[in-house]
């Protein structure tokens, strides 16, 4: 069979987004060799999953993780990608498309997938810098950058997109207010009761919500400064996100003389008024309707491919769509007609204490709409009933309780159709998961997570994904968790505990134990310090450290020795001291008759044999000479070892001592999963032994080499190279971001060396090389440091926790 026709038809796609690329995929599966394909895209990348911009903004995903079609995909499929050049015009007579930089391509078939633009309300001030939409990765980067240097965000629009933007901004530490013109949030997807629950959930996350807000003016001199409402309210704003809806991008089609209404008009075969031109996606108007959700776009892509390749005369028919809000921890689903009228009945279930509300709308024994809030795990089952129009009269009495109760209900995931959505956060269907399991021979939950992203965000669908694995692998699936439990009090692993803390916003140790299922009343000496650390890391400035869950050294801020006395190590920034400090230390040694003075491996001085009751006085005297706690007792930043560097050394290429001091000043006081040590060497001779430290910096002629994951302990491990940078600011930015990644990802008591061996240096390197992600990690680290950099010695010398240092009573 002749696979390649003598002259292939030319197909040009304008718009390198989800709908257009999906259409190409559908075309390629039907006729892999029929077309010579060219893609014009305005953004300088391959294709990415625009729906997942919200998790990127919230810091839960990287841009890389949401890239669905990297440049290599286009190459592999012989597709010419012209990325970064928007199309300027179509010449229908000549059948050519010309880009803004003059690139011209001929077409036999043209696909328009130009998408939509955010509606920018023409308020006074809407053109000020700082007023943006929320449509592409550039918008996300603008928001992340703003969250780093500014503090107030206003989001105009309380719909799906606006709320996801607000959540992301708030997660990045911005004081965020949502302005919504209607009386209730997401009124197109939620009934007033669910909308009320949603509002309360958002407020509990620190997001301010103003409904019936009539925005009047955006104020600002050179960039946005404030938003004024019609009632006179002034809201400070460093960034304003307009999320008041989208409008099909029809400019190109209109200019080419194609029939346009609100969108590019297409027939049931996705053909425009010009038979050689098809359109798909959000730019389309079909039978008077516009589209903004992904499911109908994918349906359109199939019809279009059938028509373009002439494999079938199929027609696009509008279908019911379902909506979920991608805010981790908020479980909600809505589909169909959830308002109803005089011909419909409602079935309502409400458990206010759990924040659960379900409303089902029924007409003529058919489910026609549903809103689920707070508990949406059965959404796929309800959605199927709506789409299929099944007669529910037999299960009506238990319908609201879901499939597991009603006798006629489906028993489990195996009964769901392949299109059923399993993971709501990431929009992964049952079919996609089963395909991945088959294709990549996946056998564990973690592998499925890594490959498909299913159950990788909030984790509510974990049970379903596990059932699918069991269903796909049969007896070969071993359900015993491969994860290491935190301790004997639970079977749950560290990652799952942290995920629960984040997703369910758990803020106390007892709350975590209740939510995750602890078998002991108050844990043990292994899990309590771990939970205390995870909470401290997740809620900086908010969680109050539980001293009863601290190991003695961290509670006493000194190292207990075998005889019950303590050792005291003051901080010596970068290993540099002075005659004044040394004299003060000598005086303290004499005054309190401290038996041993020892120089440590970390370039500091250790005072050994201090009695518990002496500690506050010793600290007070050291404080008086300007010295603070060295945290030599903590799972914390310990020491930054340095060599003398270019200031004195004839080989030194950079001022390693100053660099070390700057690093220590930035990172001291931070709590970490395990102790963390740093070093800075002034030349590749590496006298500070930076390549066996958790974070090592080695100066070169041209800048700094950054190393990670070294260890000089029982098992020596040499660092991996993390990055090469040129400026001191970059060293600090990387250091902060690396510390935060370690703090957020490593298990408690896991040093950086085993952490990096577990997740892989590539994973760490890739994430830190992404500027947006690096900056957002740095931002979170610095935010946490704002609350962590208080000297515990000074506090205790002033009387904090005095009971720790004194006997309850003395009995003669």
């Amino acid at each position, binding site marked *: 069979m002749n696979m390649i026709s003598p002259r292939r038809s030319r197909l040009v796609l304008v718009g390198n987004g989800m709908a257009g690329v999906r259409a190409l995929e559908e075309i390629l599966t039907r006729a892999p060799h029929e077309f010579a394909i060219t893609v014009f895209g305005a953004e300088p990348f391959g294709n990415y999953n625009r729906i997942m911009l919200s998790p990127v903004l919230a810091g839960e995903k990287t841009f890389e993780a949401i890239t669905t079609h990297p440049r290599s995909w286009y190459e592999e499929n012989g597709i010419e990608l012209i990325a970064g050049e928007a199309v300027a015009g179509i010449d229908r007579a000549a059948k050519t498309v010309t880009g803004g930089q003059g690139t011209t391509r001929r077409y036999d078939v043209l696909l328009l997938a130009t998408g939509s633009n955010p509606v920018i309300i023409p308020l006074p001030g809407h053109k000020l810098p700082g007023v943006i939409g929320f449509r592409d990765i550039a918008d996300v980067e603008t928001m992340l950058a703003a969250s780093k240097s500014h503090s107030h965000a206003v989001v105009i629009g309380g719909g799906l997109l606006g709320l996801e933007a607000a959540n992301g901004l708030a997660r990045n530490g911005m004081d965020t207010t949502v302005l919504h013109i209607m009386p209730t949030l997401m009124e197109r997807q939620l009934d007033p009761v669910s909308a009320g629950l949603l509002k309360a959930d958002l407020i509990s996350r620190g997001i301010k919500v103003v409904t019936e807000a009539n925005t009047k003016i955006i104020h600002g001199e050179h960039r946005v400064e404030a938003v004024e409402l019609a009632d006179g309210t002034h809201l400070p704003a460093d960034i304003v996100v307009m999320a008041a809806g989208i409008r099909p991008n029809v400019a190109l089609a209109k200019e080419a003389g194609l029939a346009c209404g609100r969108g590019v008009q297409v027939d049931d075969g996705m053909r425009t008024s010009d038979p050689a031109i098809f359109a798909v996606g959000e730019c389309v108007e079909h039978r008077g309707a516009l589209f903004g959700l992904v499911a109908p776009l994918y349906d359109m892509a199939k019809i279009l491919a059938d028509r373009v390749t002439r494999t079938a005369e199929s027609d696009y028919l509008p279908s019911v769509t379902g909506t979920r809000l991608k805010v981790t921890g908020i479980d909600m689903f809505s589909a169909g007609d959830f308002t109803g009228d005089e011909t419909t009945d409602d079935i309502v279930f409400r458990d206010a204490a759990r924040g659960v509300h379900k409303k089902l709308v029924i007409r003529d024994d058919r489910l026609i709409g549903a809103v689920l809030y707070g508990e949406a795990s059965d959404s796929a089952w309800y959605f199927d009933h709506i789409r299929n129009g099944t007669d529910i009269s037999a299960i009506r009495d238990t319908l609201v309780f879901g499939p597991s109760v009603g006798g006629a209900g489906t028993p489990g995931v195996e009964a769901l159709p392949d299109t059923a959505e399993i993971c709501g956060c990431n929009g992964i269907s049952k079919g996609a998961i089963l395909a991945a399991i088959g294709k990549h021979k996946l056998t564990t939950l973690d592998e499925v997570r890594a490959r498909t992203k299913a159950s990788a965000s909030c984790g509510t669908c974990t049970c379903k994904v596990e059932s699918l694995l069991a269903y796909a692998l049969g007896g070969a699936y071993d359900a015993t968790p491969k994860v290491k439990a935190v301790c004997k009090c639970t079977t749950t692993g560290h990652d799952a505990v942290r995920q629960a803390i984040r997703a369910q916003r758990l803020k106390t140790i007892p709350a975590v134990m209740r939510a995750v299922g602890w078998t002991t009343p108050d844990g043990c000496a292994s899990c309590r310090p771990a939970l205390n650390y995870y909470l401290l890391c997740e809620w900086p400035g908010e969680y109050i450290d539980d001293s009863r869950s601290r190991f003695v050294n961290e509670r006493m801020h000194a190292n207990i020795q075998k005889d019950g006395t303590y050792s005291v190590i003051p901080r010596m920034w970068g290993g540099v001291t002075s005659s004044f400090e040394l004299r003060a230390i000598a005086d303290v040694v004499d005054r309190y008759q401290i038996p041993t003075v020892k120089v440590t491996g970390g370039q500091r001085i250790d005072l050994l044999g201090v009695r518990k009751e002496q500690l506050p006085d010793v600290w007070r005297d050291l404080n008086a000479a300007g010295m603070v706690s060295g945290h030599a007792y903590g799972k914390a930043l310990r020491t930054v070892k340095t060599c003398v560097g270019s200031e004195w050394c004839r080989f030194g290429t950079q001022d390693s001592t100053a660099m070390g001091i700057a690093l220590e000043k930035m990172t001291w006081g931070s709590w970490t999963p395990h102790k963390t040590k740093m070093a800075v060497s002034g030349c590749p001779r590496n006298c500070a032994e930076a390549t066996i430290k958790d974070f090592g910096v080695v100066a070169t002629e041209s800048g700094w080499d950054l190393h990670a994951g070294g260890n000089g302990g029982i098992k020596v491990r040499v660092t991996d190279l993390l990055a090469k940078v040129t400026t001191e600011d970059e060293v600090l930015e990387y250091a902060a971001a690396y510390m935060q990644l370690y703090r957020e990802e490593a298990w408690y008591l896991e040093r950086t060396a085993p952490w990096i061996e577990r997740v892989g240096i590539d994973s760490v390197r890739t994430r830190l090389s992404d500027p947006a992600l690096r900056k957002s990690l740095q931002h979170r680290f610095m935010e946490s440091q704002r609350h962590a950099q208080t000297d515990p010695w000074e506090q205790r010398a002033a009387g904090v926790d005095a009971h720790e240092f004194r*006997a309850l009573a003395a009995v003669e």
Partner: protein
Amino acid sequence: MDGQISVWTDVGQLDDIPRLGSRVVTTPAFDIAVFRTGDDRIFALHDRCPHKAGKLSQGIVHDESVTCPLHNWVIRLSDGLAKDPDEGCSRTVPVRLRNGRILLAVGGT
């Protein structure tokens, strides 16, 4: 305390000890660790782990046990017995809670 007559000595009130915490009562002969559990029960042991004499008063208290800060032996507060697989016993001191006051059976003649 064999053959010895002890008296109940008031050493402080319940709230002097944090929940899941411990305080020390010194005597001329030895130190006593007084523990308060999460449900406000009070126990007292010699402040000495049977293993290497670690100060139990500095350990983490959980349920009805304390974990020694030196080598993580878990000692039961009610009888001072080390939990399996470790073997050993810390001496208990009779203690009572009355009207929010902690009374220890120490001292006397």
